[in-house]
């Protein structure tokens, strides 16, 4: 229990200000929270509130204006191979096959071809894309493309997975089935997951805990613990609807 509670990742007083000819623009303001080992943490916030900016800082793609990110207790700067990202927009490269996409991280890590193929096979099967290894993304549906993105992030076997609104562009039906898929996958491959969404129901179905962000600039409004609700969750149960309502009442409207 003790080791289970130690933070895998800690975000401390992160602030991000963008400067342009028009002046300064604050996207993230003094955000702090911790992600525990093995936890599925959901960041919930309205559209354009600074969620992606925050994630890009954690994954090392952007530099914060102030504050720090700690990974296993150590402050980190820049990209880290132990943190993988599933991107918001379809980030699956159309000029590479499904298999080449899934192997991308392994290839940049310098792994040999045979080993790569073994690993990618495992993760392609895991996300249910067996038989599509040689297909090119334009031949796939939106849900299938996002599966490729998920397999690619898992393939490098990182300690932490960051998912930036991975289902935001999918239709409601596909989105719902992908939520179940991500529950199955994260149960099968135990990882620490930081999942971002602007959808309250999605947050309540997936999150062990939910960090609620305010409208731009992003600040932490409240952190909800949903561990008392076992997964998969019954989305029409009273407890589920109660917490959903509670979070909903506390949410800023996106402009």
């Amino acid at each position, binding site marked *: 229990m003790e080791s289970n509670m130690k933070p895998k990742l800690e975000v401390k007083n992160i602030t991000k200000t963008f400067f342009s000819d028009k002046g300064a623009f604050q996207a993230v303001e003094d955000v702090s929270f911790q992600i525990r080992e093995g936890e599925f943490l959901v960041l919930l916030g309205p559209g354009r509130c600074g969620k992606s900016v925050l994630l890009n800082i954690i994954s090392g*793609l952007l530099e914060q204006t102030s504050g720090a990110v700690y990974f296993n207790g150590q402050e980190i700067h820049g*990209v880290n191979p132990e943190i993988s*990202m599933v991107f918001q927009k379809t*980030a699956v*490269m159309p000029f590479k096959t499904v298999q080449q996409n899934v192997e991308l991280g392994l290839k*940049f890590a310098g792994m040999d071809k045979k080993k790569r193929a073994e690993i990618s096979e495992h993760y392609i099967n895991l996300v249910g894309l067996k038989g599509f290894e040689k297909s*090119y993304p334009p031949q796939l549906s939106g849900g299938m493309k996002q599966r490729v993105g998920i397999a690619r992030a898992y393939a490098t076997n990182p300690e932490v997975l960051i998912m930036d609104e991975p289902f935001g562009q999918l239709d409601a039906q596909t989105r719902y089935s992908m939520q179940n898929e991500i529950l199955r996958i994260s149960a099968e491959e135990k990882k620490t997951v930081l999942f971002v969404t602007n959808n309250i129901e999605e947050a309540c179905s997936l999150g062990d805990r939910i960090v609620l962000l305010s409208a731009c600039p992003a600040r932490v409004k409240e952190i909800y613990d949903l561990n008392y609700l076992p997964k998969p969750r019954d989305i029409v149960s009273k407890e589920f609807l109660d917490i959903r309502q509670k979070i909903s009442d506390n949410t800023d409207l996106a402009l």
Partner: protein
Amino acid sequence: MAGADLKLLGTDYQIWKKKQRREAGQYYLLCLVGIFCFFAIWQIAVTAGLANERLLPSPLQVFETIIEKFYQKEPDGNTMLVNICASLQVALSGFLLAVVIGIPLGLVMGWFRLAEAFFRPIFELVRPVPPIAWIPLVVVWFGIGLQAKALIIFFSAFVPCVINSYTGIQLTNRTYINVARTFGASETEIFRKVGIPSSLPMVFAGVRVALGNSWSTLVAAEMLAATAGLGYMIQQGRTLARPDLVIAGMVVIGAIGAVLSGILSYIEKRLIKGQKNESN
């Protein structure tokens, strides 16, 4: 995925396929009819005396001249094959030189800010100069041999190679770059494995324009007192008042241009995978 459904819908599929085939058949038939009409009207205009035969030979006559030129050196001194080879040599060496220099330059210029700052102004200065304007200088520098002509072609093909590679690689989706970056790829790896492949469709569109330019600048380049080539043959046709020879040269240039463009399409299809009809 589709295979299983199609078997279930076997007969519907057969009907659909038949309809597709019929529509494709109609399309190609109409293509042939179009070409036929073009030549028929031309032929009729000449035979009916609407056009002066000394100024506009009939298509049959042009066809005869083309065949004749394959075994006869008169009046320009080379058989058709020699002329074709001479022209291909000039056009392709200029074109290949442009591809080999232009594409890397465009890619580097589009990707590395400092390279852009250095090369872009020079390129912008050279770009608006029409290739033919180089002729006098090139003649002084290199005489009238293969080098001189290839250089003129080079100028006409170089610009689209650079511009398309430059724009193509600049349009690389930021997210693809970020994906590679989170996996710890170095800047040169991202350039090679993400930037270049994602720019290929645009690069190829540029190569296509470059090939067209090379071939159409050929006649101009061969006006440099060449001794062989299709452009030279056309020139001779003009001096000797042989419009059939002029048109024969034009037709052969057109046909070879179409074949080259077909070859390029084939290479493009082999090289660019998965990218077509990607909207994101």
